[in-house]
């Protein structure tokens, strides 16, 4: 049957290719929820350190394994993305950069800055440690 409803449709998510603005928007939400779950590990590390050397040794073994590093690097990347995009959100809230032209520039900027901050953070850590 031919589609003759003239009203605008919302995008069909499995067919429509999301533009970068939409992708970044959902990524802000995904990183927000992911970071919330990640804070469990922070509390775990603090509790372990408060409990004594044996329990903290487990935390340290996990963190310094390759999978631990991978998780920590992903966590900082997600946090820096959410951080940069969060600043973008708050600039929108005060009416700055809300037009399409600006969002097309600030979107990629968020990705680049988040990546640069992540690399910088780990370079400093590896240089010091």
């Amino acid at each position: 049957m031919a589609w003759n409803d003239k009203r605008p449709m919302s995008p069909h998510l499995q067919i429509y290719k999301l533009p970068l603005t939409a992708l970044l928007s959902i990524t802000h939400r995904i990183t927000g929820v992911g970071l919330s779950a990640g804070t469990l590990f922070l509390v775990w590390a603090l509790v372990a350190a408060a409990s004594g050397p044996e329990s903290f040794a487990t935390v340290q073994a996990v963190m310094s394994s390759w999978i631990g590093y991978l998780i920590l690097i992903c966590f900082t990347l997600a946090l820096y993305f959410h951080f940069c995009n969060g600043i973008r959100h708050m600039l929108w809230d005060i009416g700055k950069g809300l037009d399409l032209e600006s969002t097309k520039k600030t979107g990629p900027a968020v990705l680049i800055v988040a990546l640069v901050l992540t690399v910088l953070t780990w370079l400093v850590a590896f240089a010091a440690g």
Partner: protein
Amino acid sequence: MSSNSLRTPLGKVKGLGSAKSGTHHFLVQRLTALALIPLTLWFCFSLASMPAMDYASFTAWLQSPVSASLMILTVLVTFYHASLGVQVVIEDYVSGHGLRLASIIAVQFVCALLAVVGTVSVIKILIGGAA
């Protein structure tokens, strides 16, 4: 909603959530985000150096009043921000009134619990003295 509906005004709004608190939620989400800007930079750089720390160096680091204060601030502000944020996500995706309310309350209780446990741990390390 048509004005000649038989439903009472109270019946129409029941279960849609409390009035007068939406702006507050919006503002506190932004205020906590603002506070998290410097805290996040400090936290990420600290986090990246953690795998290289053993028990002695980690506790020595947290026994400095500056690190302990910043860590407690980070924990408190993060869990406040996270509970507000996850609440919005639940409101968007969980449609049953009972289940929605129950999950929001559960998230807030868990966040409060974790915030207190994290803070108490930092204080214990701080006053634990030379380990």
